[in-house]
């Protein structure tokens, strides 16, 4: 038996790929730099108070990050967003997988769920305020009400489309109940669920901002709104920049985690990632 492995998942020609991807990355950072440069120049040219230069905004960002704003606003916001996200994740996965796996239940609930998720989530904010007053609890509730949907939908889809052969093999090996869930259902649907989670993460951040604008007295959203209303222009821009960076940070960390957990999936799909 001398047959060796035919490595399918390995990349060939490592040295070439490395250089090419470096070039591609370089080009894209150049693109970003070009946009920022354009910002700087237009700002200088227009010379309007409502359009500060990029450099000015960045310096304010530096001020904010080292000041009390960090702990007073940024950290609470991050905590709220992540809490809302985690709750949505757990809830979404449980509900979605159950509805997808138990056919009749899914069919029964699908019309209702379809309606619920069509409600534009910001519309629920006054509702949440009426229920929970102002503050963190309200914000988290609104986040969950918005971020849970992509998770449910993706989990539902994935559970529906699970490879029937996996289920057959599981039955043959005698896997039932919770063992079936943990060892077959969950891993098989995890890639799709992660795609939904990624969307949920960005929704969490977006809804966080609006919820805070309308109903909180601390937090990034509140900060940005406050700055806008007091015409503290550079601060407004700075706040938005911080938010953008947070969004980017969350997304990147998430992708890294995903790559770790789903290392096996890349081999299957050939690493098709957007």
């Amino acid at each position, binding site marked *: 038996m001398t047959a060796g492995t035919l490595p399918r998942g390995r990349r060939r020609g490592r040295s070439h790929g490395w250089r090419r991807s470096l070039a591609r990355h370089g080009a894209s950072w150049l*693109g970003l730099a070009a946009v920022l440069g354009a910002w700087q120049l237009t700002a200088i040219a227009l010379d309007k108070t409502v359009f500060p230069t990029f450099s000015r905004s960045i310096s304010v960002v530096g001020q904010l990050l080292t000041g009390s704003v960090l702990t007073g606003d940024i950290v609470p916001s991050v905590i709220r967003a992540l809490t809302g996200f985690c709750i949505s994740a757990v809830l979404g996965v449980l509900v979605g997988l159950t509805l997808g796996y138990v056919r009749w239940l899914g069919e029964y609930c699908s019309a209702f769920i379809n309606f619920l998720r069509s409600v534009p989530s910001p519309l629920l904010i006054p509702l949440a305020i009426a229920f929970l007053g102002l503050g963190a609890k309200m914000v988290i509730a609104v986040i969950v009400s918005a971020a849970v949907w992509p998770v449910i939908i993706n989990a539902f*889809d994935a559970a529906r489309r699970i490879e029937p052969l996996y289920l057959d093999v599981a039955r043959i090996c005698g896997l039932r109940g919770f063992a079936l869930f943990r060892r077959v259902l969950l891993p098989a649907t995890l890639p799709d669920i992660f795609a939904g989670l990624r969307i949920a993460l960005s929704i969490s951040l977006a809804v966080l901002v609006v919820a805070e604008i309308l109903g909180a007295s601390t937090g990034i959203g509140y900060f940005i709104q406050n700055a806008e209303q007091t015409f503290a222009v550079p601060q407004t821009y700075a*706040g938005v920049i911080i938010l953008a960076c947070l969004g*980017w940070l969350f997304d990147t960390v998430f992708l890294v985690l995903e790559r770790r957990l789903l290392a096996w999936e890349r081999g299957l799909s050939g690493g098709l990632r957007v």
Partner: protein
Amino acid sequence: MGVVIGLWTVITGSGAVSTDNIPTVAAVVRGAAGSWQDLLSSLGATLETWALGLAIATVAGVTLGLLVGLSQWADSATDVIVRMMRPLPSLALIPLAILVAGLGVKMTSGLVAFAAFWPVFINTRYAVRQIEPRLLDSGRAVGLGRWGLIRRVVIPATAPTIATGVRISVGLAIVVTVSVELVVGTGGLGGYVLAAEQSGATGQMYAGVVVGGILGWALNLLFLAAARALMPWQAVVGRGLG
């Protein structure tokens, strides 16, 4: 659905929950009926802003997406920008937009357009990159020139993915429109619900929310119907629950 309405009536009827917070179905209907002109005009305002913003975003998104997708260096150059803009909550830009462009329809539609642009642009760009090269080869073999190729191969091949992007934008645009209305406090469905909340008219508030839900749901259905009509060769399946 009927089950839900039934449950709702029972719960509120039994007095288990204070009717201040969760109104009865009857109260909601009464609230809607009582202010139906307001409700309708708010709906109209929201739809107007939404449609304008979405139209601009779709045209810009598809055009730029095609251009960028067809050119290798433009694609690489925009990579980081796309990765940065993707997770950026456009809702965070609301105060910024107010600052820069004041209040008014122009500002709202502008922001909606900006937010809705990205999903369409990203999807178009991605779709162009993913075109099966053999399709292009077949097109060239039949003698299609640059324009012919774009019109008869690129666009139909990328249409489904673009459609998915537009679908996301449809929902996103509504969310942004309503958010701006809520923050600014006037006009549209957002303004309606906010006013109802502030004056404690919970029936009206819920009515607004329900209308919002119906709106979102109806827009989605319309979109799917349009997609099916325009792309009969493709099974445009809604995400499972759809």
